[in-house]
């Protein structure tokens, strides 16, 4: 390993570990239009997708640094016709490959090819346990197709991993969702409460559940766990708006996680493109090594030098790293602030106010969902750009 010894003064020399987790968002193309998607709302303006050869180079460079867990995601990664080629190279290099998919486009032929390419696991998303809600939330008719894909995944000997994003409109169906997962023979189920970035942020006030909804869902999950035991592992990802301490987002930015967007932009977390003052590097112009160890964007939030009060003197700063930088920016306008989910943050009232609005909306029945939700699609993405007059791009 001497050939790759870090130079004195570099991030590597200061004890920064390798980017163990590499996420490739291969494309923003997606047949679904989910209201809770974390992709940026301006995805339609992203430059051309990287060609196959560039993705293969990225894989080789990242693996040489020590990356080992690989996420192939999007958008819908199956929209890339070279997915099998990318997976095969990743497998040859020794990555553990997680394919994160809506299932749309996963035919018998493609799953056979992906299996022989070496994809280790396929995570299939469902929007709900009912056809009506699944199809409404994704603005597609995909429920029956997903159920067929789940069968395909199992038939090909993969561990069955289901992911369902929870929010106001499906959190009351957790019992039915878990029953569906059990029928499908799922070994892992992620009940991931919506994290409010991208499209989900745009739709936040329509998606946040009430506290009573959340407690019921947790109770249902607890009882279900008790019944099925180790047969099915359920990850209940807490909705952090209801917490009083922030999540240790990415174990701190620049610690283990490296994401690449379809055009090759490198991000220290999925949502970091929104953060002001980051000069985001691109793999077209820089090696993965330079990006990870030397770029401004990946060093900006390393360590604790950037922290403000109350984080900087907080005994819990080594545990939660001040929470999520993107959430701090979205809610307070300053990415160096404490994540306002923390009740020690002077901005915590912004979170409790959002929750209070959600409570009121749920209790009153709220406006019809069709009128408040904005679906992730190309035209809406364009229409949301600053300076685009209302009526242009949408419709």
């Amino acid at each position, binding site marked *: 390993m001497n050939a790759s010894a870090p130079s004195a003064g570099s991030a590597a020399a200061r004890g920064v570990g390798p980017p163990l987790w590499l996420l490739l968002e291969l494309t923003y193309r997606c047949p679904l239009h989910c209201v809770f998607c974390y992709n940026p709302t301006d995805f339609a303006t992203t430059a051309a997708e990287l060609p196959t050869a560039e993705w293969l180079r990225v894989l080789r460079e990242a693996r040489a640094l020590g990356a080992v867990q690989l996420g192939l995601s999007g958008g819908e990664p199956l929209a890339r016709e070279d997915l099998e080629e990318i997976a095969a190279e990743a497998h040859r290099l020794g990555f553990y490959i997680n394919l994160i998919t809506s299932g749309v486009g996963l035919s018998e032929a493609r799953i056979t090819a992906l299996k022989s390419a070496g994809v280790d696991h396929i*995570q299939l998303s469902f929007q709900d346990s009912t056809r009506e809600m699944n199809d409404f939330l994704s603005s597609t008719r995909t429920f029956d197709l997903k159920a067929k894909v789940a069968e395909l995944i199992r038939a090909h000997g993969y561990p069955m991993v289901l992911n369902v994003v929870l929010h106001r409109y499906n959190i009351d169906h957790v019992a039915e969702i878990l029953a569906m997962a059990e029928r499908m023979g799922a070994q892992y189920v992620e009940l991931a409460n919506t994290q409010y970035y991208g499209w989900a942020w745009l739709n936040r006030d329509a998606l946040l559940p009430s506290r009573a909804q959340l407690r019921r869902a947790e109770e249902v999950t607890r009882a279900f766990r008790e019944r099925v035991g180790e047969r099915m592992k359920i990850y209940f990802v807490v909705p952090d708006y209801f917490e009083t301490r922030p999540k240790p987002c990415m174990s701190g930015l620049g610690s283990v996680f490296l994401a690449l967007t379809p055009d090759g932009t490198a991000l220290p977390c999925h949502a970091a493109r929104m953060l002001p003052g980051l000069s985001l590097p691109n793999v077209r112009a820089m090696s993965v090594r330079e990006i990870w160890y030397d770029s401004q964007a990946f060093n900006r939030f390393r360590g604790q030098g950037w922290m403000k009060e109350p984080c900087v003197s907080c005994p819990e700063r080594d545990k939660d790293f001040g929470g999520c930088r993107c959430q701090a920016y979205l809610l307070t306008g300053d990415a160096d602030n404490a994540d306002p989910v923390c009740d020690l943050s002077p901005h915590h009232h912004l979170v409790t106010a959002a929750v209070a609005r959600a409570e009121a909306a749920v209790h009153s029945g709220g406006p019809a969902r069709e009128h408040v939700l904005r679906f992730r699609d190309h035209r809406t993405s364009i229409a949301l750009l600053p300076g685009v007059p209302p009526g242009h791009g949408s419709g």
Partner: protein
Amino acid sequence: MSGVDGRLKPAIAHGMRLQWEEAQAAHVLLYPEGMVKLNGTAGAILSRCDGVRCLDEIVAELERTYGASGLAADVNAFVTYALEKQWLELRP
């Protein structure tokens, strides 16, 4: 003695992968969206769990390799733990 029958053959569980990671100077266990970095002892045991060698053979081999004796109870305890964690499965 309680614990795992020494004639059974432990193997890395379906859907899990064990590999040596140079960058971490350790064996790691990889599974859907997760990774466990193993210490030296755990790596030495799990890397011998290939579904071919039985537990008694693995213990004997570890004792030879490390010039030690009386490892059976410790290895058995770790294998029991790894079975609970679903890192390993047993084959007849």
